[in-house]
Structures are given as C-alpha cells and as structure tokens.
C-alpha cells in the first residue's frame, strides 16, 4: 500500500509539471499588464518611468524563457513567489483564504452526503413511488439551478422574511470571523453558502446514488443475500449500499476538489474571501504569479483527492487491492 501511494505521488509530478507549463503559457496569452492596471486605473496619469520600474521590480522586463525557467526552478523549491499585485508572499495570500474555502467545502460536502445518500437510496428502494418522484424532482431542480442564483434567492428570502417578521431586514454578517474565534458568528456566515452549494452538490450525488443503487439491487448477489434470509436492512446497508457507493465516492471527491477553487460566484454573492474569489482577482489583475500558484493548488487538490478516492475503493470493495 505504501509503495502504491508513493508511486501515485511520483506519477503526479509530471501532471503537476504539465499543469505548471500550461498555466504559465495561458496566463501570458491574456493580453494586458499588471503594472498598467495598477498604475493607470484612475486618479493618475500613466508614467513611463514608473511603468518601467514596476516591470523591473516584478521581473517582467526579463525574456519570457527566463521567466519560465525561474518559475519552474522556484516551483521545484516550493517557492511560489510574491504576488505581483499585493507584494505579499503567495503562500500567505493562499493561507489567508484557504480556511474559508475549506470550511464551506467541508460543510457543503457534509450537507450533500447527509442529503444525497439517504434520499438517493430511499428513492431507489421505493422506485416510482411518491417519495421517489419527490426526490427526483428535488435532484433535477438542484442540478438545473446554479448555486449562485440560489444564493441570491436565499439572501432575498432571508431579507424579506426577517423584514416581515421583525420589521427590519436581517442578513448574515459580511465580515468573516474564523470558526475558532466565534463559532456561532462564523456559522451564521458560512451556513447559507454551504446549504446553497451543498444542495446542488447533493442533487448530483443523489441522482448517482439512486441509479447505482438501482443497478446493484438487481444484481445476483443481492438476490442471493435475500434468499439466504438476511434482513432487508443488512442487504441494503452491507451488500448493496457499500457496492453502490463506489462511483458515488468518486463523484464526491471530484466535487469536493472543485469546491476548493470553484466557488467563485458563490463567494462573491456571500462576500466570502475564499480561494475562488482570489483566483478571479488574480486573473483580473493579471497577477500571473498568484494565478499560477492557485491553479497549481487546485491541481494538487485534485491529485490528492483522486488518490484518497482510490484508497477508499479498497475499503469499500475488499476485492480491490493495491500493491
């Protein structure tokens, strides 16, 4: 198993290197210049001397090949560089935002799992019943509804309902406080975004759980288990669900990895200072160093999550053995 993990991690290196090269090239293909945006965005006349100095300070006066080689060398040394926009170390910028994104992602994942697996399973077990129809409608609505729209709607709902009840509109706080500083205040900030994201997430997972369960429940070994006289609860939980969860776990993993950097609009709607918002800012400001590091972070999260998912397979299905 250890050997397998090490091999997988080593195999991730070419993936990371390829991603690094790709993101470096793509960022340079976007026309524009961080210095021009910074020095010419308003309230000043663009000054060529200041522009030249800015380019020099950021290393943008170097040939592109030199910039690329420097980037690769620094990456190999785990030096992600300095943000071209803020001048802060990139790791510092990321560490500031990562807890927010992680918290929403974890909470949304928990909500999604708690909703999707029981409802998806019940939906499959009670196929074509009223419950099944309700769950399917819920799931399809969740897939069809963008989470940012749901976020906006939920805020409007909260504002209007609170205004109707108390006479003055209420809104969750917009200034983030970490969980360990004030858990209740923190939850009042992240709960709504986590629910809106978790609902969409659960909808996809619910559909997959249902279809996987339907497939498994028609397998011969389920019939055998029932023929042996096992309780239906044991048949479902131990024999059917565990097997049906294989594709579901993959989906949960991919969705979780996506949430780390993909909550761009949701983070904006709820004013959360997370990784997704930072990535958009970095691209808008043409902060190539920060954007590269963030994309690499997302790639790394995908690689790790995929590995964890593969390891979970072995736990879920004893026939799978890694060596």
């Amino acid at each position, binding site marked *: 198993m250890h050997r397998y993990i090490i091999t997988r991690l080593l195999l991730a290196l070419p993936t990371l290197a390829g991603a690094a090269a790709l993101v470096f090239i793509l960022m340079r293909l*976007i*026309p*524009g*210049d*961080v210095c*021009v*945006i*910074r*020095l*010419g*965005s*308003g*309230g*000043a*006349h*663009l*000054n*060529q*001397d*200041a522009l030249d*100095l*800015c380019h020099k*300070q950021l290393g943008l006066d170097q040939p592109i090949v030199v910039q690329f080689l420097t980037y690769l060398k620094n990456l190999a040394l785990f030096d992600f560089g300095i943000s071209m*926009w*803020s*001048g*802060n170390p990139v790791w510092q*910028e990321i560490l*500031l*935002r990562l807890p927010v994104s992680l918290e929403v992602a974890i909470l949304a994942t928990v909500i999604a799992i708690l909703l999707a697996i029981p409802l998806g399973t019940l939906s499959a077990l009670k196929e074509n019943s009223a419950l099944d129809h309700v769950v399917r409608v819920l799931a399809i609505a969740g897939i069809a509804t963008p989470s940012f729209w749901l976020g*906006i709607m939920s*805020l409007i709902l909260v*504002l209007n309902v*609170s205004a109707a009840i108390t006479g*003055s*509109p*209420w*809104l969750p*706080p*917009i*200034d*983030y406080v970490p969980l360990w500083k004030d858990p209740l205040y923190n939850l009042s900030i992240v709960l709504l975004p986590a629910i809106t994201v978790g609902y969409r997430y659960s909808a996809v997972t619910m559909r997959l759980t249902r279809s996987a369960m339907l497939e498994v429940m028609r397998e011969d070994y389920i019939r055998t288990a029932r023929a042996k006289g096992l309780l239906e609860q044991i048949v479902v939980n131990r024999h059917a669900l565990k097997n049906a969860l294989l594709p579901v776990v993959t989906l949960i993993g991919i969705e979780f990895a996506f949430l780390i950097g993909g909550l761009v609009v949701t983070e*904006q*709607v*709820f*004013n959360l*200072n997370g990784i997704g*918002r*930072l990535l958009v*800012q970095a691209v*808008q*400001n*043409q902060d190539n160093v920060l954007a590269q590091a963030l994309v690499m972070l997302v790639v790394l999260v995908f690689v790790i999550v995929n590995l964890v998912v593969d390891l979970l397979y072995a736990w879920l299905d004893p026939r799978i053995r890694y060596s």
Partner: protein
Amino acid sequence: MSVRMNIWTAGLGLAAAVAFNPAWAESPKQGGMLTYVIPADAPPSFDAHRETTYATIHSAAPYYSVLIRVPPDNPASTTEFVCDLCTEMPKPTDGGKTYTFKIREGVKFHDGSKLTAQDVALSWQYIVKPPKGVVSARQSFYEMVESVQAIDDTTVVFKLKYATTAFLPALADPYSWIYKKEILEKDPHWFEKNIMGSGPFKLVTYEVGQSIKGERNKDYYHKGLPHLDGILGIFADKQSVRVDAIKADRASIEFRGLPPSARDQLTKELGDKVWVQDSDWNCGNILTPNHQKKPFDDVRVRKALALAIDQWKGAPALAKIANVRTVGGIVFPGSPLAATKAELEQYPGFWPDIEKSRAEAKRLLKEAGAEGLKFELLNRNVDQPYKFVGTWVIGEWKKIGLQVEQKVVPTGPWFSNMRAGTFDVALEANCQSVVNPVLDTGKYLPHKVFPDNYGYYDDPKSIELYEAMQKETDPAKQRIAMRAYEKQTMDTEVHEIVLPYWYRIVMGRSYVKGWKISPSHYLNQDLANIWLDK
C-alpha cells in the same frame, strides 16, 4: 428633505447637486463605530504615493494627514482648498512661484513621535521626484515644482518653475499622505504594507481582503475630531452585497457610488432610513477614434461620429439607468473653466437640432466615402457606466447608418489594446480626483507628449494651445485659452468625443451624519467629521 442645486441655473461653479440633510446642522454626537463597505477586494498596497486605486484611499485615508485638501464641510467646491497640516493657506510670492507653508505644531504620528516640516518636505520630495527604485504614480502632476524644502521644523517651501493655477489643486491631491521621514529614509517600501500616519484614526487590525479596523486617535490635532470611536471598512466587491448590507444595516454607508437602480431600490424599501447624496463626478467617458487607422484619420469621419450622438436627449435618458448625467466638454462641468451650454452647442454632437446634426454627419460620411462604415467599439467589461454608455452610443451611430460591434473585454486587454493601438474606436474614461482642469485636460494632448492618450494623433497646434492655457494665471484669460484648446480637441480636429459626465450617488443610513459628497470618490475620505445620530 433634499435640495438640489442645478449647476446650469445656480451658476456657482459647483459640480455637485447635493441633497442636504438638515440634521447636519445639529451638534455632533461623540462615539460609536462606523461600519462601511469598500467596493473592492483589497488595495494592492497601502502606499498612496504609488497606488492609483480608490481601494487604497477608502481603506487607509482615515489614518493619514495631508498638507492641504478640499474643505471637508464643502468638498463640492472646485476652487476652495484648506489646510490640514498647515496653519493657513499661503499667499504665493515671487510672481506666484513660491509657496511657504507653516506646519502645525504638536502634531503626532500614531507612534507618538512628533510630525514636523521635515516629514512633510520629504514626503513631498518622494512624490515630486521619487528616488531610484520608488514609484510615484502622480509624479507628472508636479512637473511645475522645482523644489520642496523644509526651512525649519515648522516651514515648508515649494518653489515652482513657473506660476500655474494647477499647483494648489495638485497639492490637495488626496493620495499625498504625509509619511514619517525616519521610516521613509530607512525603507521607502515600508508604507506599502504598514500604516503609520497622523490622521484621525489609528489602525487596529487589517484582515487582507476582509476588513480594516481603526480606533479614534485621541491626539488628533483638529480639536473635537474625530467624532467616532472607531471605523470598520469591510471589503465587498460585489454590488448586491453592498446594497444588501446597507439594507440590513450590516453597513451604514458605501462611499464610492451606487447606480440609479440601487438608489431607487433602497429608497423605496427603506424610505427615510436612508439618505441619498448625489453629485456630478469628475469622471467622464470619452470616445477615442484611433487616428492611425483608416478612415478615422479623416476628420470628417470623426466629426460624423460626434454629430450622430444626441447628447442633450441621451444624457437624461441614460441617467435613469446608468451613472451618468451632465453634458460637458473637456472641463468638469462645475469648474469656472468649463464650457457653458451655449458654448457647448457650437461643437459637433452638441448641436441643439439633432436632425440637422445627423444630416450633416451623413453628408460628411458620404463625402469621405465612409457611408455604412463598419467598425468595432472597444469597451471595458465594467457595467457602470461603460457598457451602458457603449450600447447607447452604438444605437446613436446606427441612426446614421454605421454598423458598429461592441468588443467588451476585461480591464487588462482593454488597456493592452489601447496601448498597442489595436482598436478602431475605444470607449475610455478620464477619471480624476481634485478638480484641476489644467491637469485633467492633459488627457487630450497627443500621445507623444501625454502617453495616456490613445488617439495616436500628432497635433502641434493642440500642444501650443494647451501650453498657453496651462501657463495663464489670469482666470478670464485662462478661460478663453481653455476654450481655444477645447475647440481644437472637440470641434476643429475632433480628436476625442466627450460623452456625459458620470454621476455619483452615495447612500447611507439616516443616522450617519457629517459627511458630504464631493465630485470624486477619492476626496473627503478621512471620515473625521462623520458622527452617528443613534
């Protein structure tokens, strides 16, 4: 509840049409914490000398002092400046070439150290002529300055190369914060990440991209100020967040400006729980034809583009949905140097008879062989007001048979296309802080003398007219000189087409008092005068 001053009829030279709240006459209450939203993610740095974004001002201006400024009790004035760190506004000597400022005594930086004329002089030296390796974003504003010297601990002398009316407004620039000499000499980049000022508030915490919190500076030199115990600025780049925050009283005010739709929504829903202040904005969209590209090298085509636009009818209609309102020329409409309506009506695009104007546009296009011309309008991917204005202009051009496609791109590529000259016509903006017509109109000079101009034309006559205007110190003569320069820019050569000026709408909860709107979101942001009536 509110009284608006129409700039055309009032004739006061005020750009602002301000809604006054009578409660400002009340005596201010001390205490309380003001929470406000900053419409940005985070400033790139806290060093106002090097930054150009309002995010730096809205975040950190309350922690700094400046030498002079627009009056906080009348920031709408385009001609009045008052002391902040100086004791009285000096009378220039040496034929208008020397200004001697006496600096207040007893002013302390937030670390308790004494602020002297040495700090003021060095800060200004870094702005005017930065040492190697230091960026000063507004260095070009101060080309008239020969030297800045501290004679002693209470006197700073500015010597100019030539007398100009541009100097005092430039000196009141809100980015010209006074830094501590000792730190500046040791590490000029220190102020990028740290704050050490002498302003009305002291920094408590800064959470990058989240919030910035300050507390009252008990040693503040303006007696009785600030009124607030503290301030909390929350970064919120999305407009819906800011509007909802004001609605739910999570924030009391947003200082940059909201669009008319947000104003209408909030006033409808909150009634007298909010106030609105509005003002013409020292920002304007301009259309820049690329003179290097055919047929925009032909003045007849450029003139036709201007003649097609019905400014007088378009501005009020557009004002209902976009942050624009007042028709103007190259000078901010509230300034004494601005064109009157009668003067504007002489320029193409401002004729009172739009049918006649469009007929002339068609004639000129036919004469230039450019009937049914197809081209691209380069625009910035910013809703307010760029995309609204761009869409309106294209509609106007369609009326003379032009087929124009709007190419909307993010800020980076927008700048990049303009700088590379890879566009047909660009919709850009001339956005300034203190109303300083001499400097503000530098934008219309040819690219070779003003690199921020993207029309790529050469026009020695324009340069000559500008220089004559720039060095004229008699107000009446300067006004005439400005008209000549404006006519050359907007009529004779139609180098640029000036569109209606932006309109600033600021909303706050009704208990927020003491703050007055100015023609720029960069101005009057030290928050010292604000108090809470609750």
